[in-house]
């Protein structure tokens, strides 16, 4: 994939993450803050399909944006082919693991 395409994805996911996190924070304000973190309320939130989808999209957007940011920083540290390959594999695997684990949590709690 061309670097410009990767960076387009990076900027778009960054903006979209900002938007979805803003919606998420706004939704927390619907109930008093202390109540919003009570066990029953949290589980109830997960069981709302729209809320679960919102959480899933935050998870995916932040993971893509964050791990690509990490890749960019690591690439600037050293410049050799082996390191570049390692950085690529490491960030891609870490991103998939985080998305996979987070999705699993969302599915278990909402199920």
């Amino acid at each position, binding site marked *: 994939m061309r670097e*410009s395409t990767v960076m387009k994805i990076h900027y778009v996911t960054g903006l979209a993450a900002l938007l979805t996190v803003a919606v998420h924070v706004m939704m927390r304000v619907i109930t008093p803050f202390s109540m919003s973190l009570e066990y029953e309320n949290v589980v109830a939130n997960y069981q709302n399909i729209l809320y679960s989808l919102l959480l899933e999209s935050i998870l995916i957007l932040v993971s893509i944006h964050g791990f690509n940011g990490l890749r960019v920083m690591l690439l*600037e540290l050293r410049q050799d082919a082996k390191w570049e390959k390692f950085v690529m594999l490491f960030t891609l695997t870490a991103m998939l693991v985080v998305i996979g684990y987070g999705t699993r949590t969302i599915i278990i709690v909402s199920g």
Partner: protein
Amino acid sequence: MKKKFLLARDTSEINLPRASDDTSDIVLNIYRGGPNQKPENSYDSYRVPVSRWTTVLDALIYAKERLDSSVAIRYSCRMASCGSCGMKINGIPRLACYTKISELGTHTITCEPLPNFPLIRDLVTDFQEFFDHHKKIQPYIQNLHPDPSIDKLSEFEQTPQQVDEFLQFSYCIKCGLCYSACPTVATDTKFPGPQALAQAYRYFADSRDDAVEKRLSIVDDKHGIWRCHFAGSCSKVCPKGVDPALGIQMLRSHMMSITKKPKKRLAELRETSREGS
């Protein structure tokens, strides 16, 4: 910083033009040594008489001619045209021939080699890597698809507006000051640097050039144009008024499809010029 003062030998028989009455002395600290020297012990100090118009390069030449001929400096035109006298003067990358002592507002001038360049000796650095980056972006006009309907050779005509698109970037003298001020170059040796990227924009914006995709694919790399953090220090230090940071952002905005290339087909231009003549 260990300083060693070297005083001028008697210069009375040497018939050099003496500075006017308003001369004063400055202390010129010059970085001495090669690539493997420890920086803390590497400065020699010289007392140099200067007048109102003395440039840092004049002071360095005075020190080399009269006080210590072993000082290594590189210069040629003495008029900010060749780009060979770049160095760090009182902490900022500048051209020695374009920096007057009086504008620095101090009597202590410290000259160091340009950062981000391998050191050869004293104030002389190796520009090979810098020029390699420049060459890599193919800094020349390419007309890959000439109009076959035109059988006669004619000039490449441009409107003043088309010239304005790239003019400021063509003032670059390849002095490397922007490259030495760039924080990304300091960490990423494969990053082309502000000079090469600004030149990529210079040819991209030129209506006579049509190697757009070819050139963009060179800078669209893991270590290419996207690694610019927009620190803007390149534009601050440029002695020729070029704004490399602007060129980089313009090229990036095109690659993000925010702006389109303001290019007219060459054939259309030639058609207009033929009609006019």
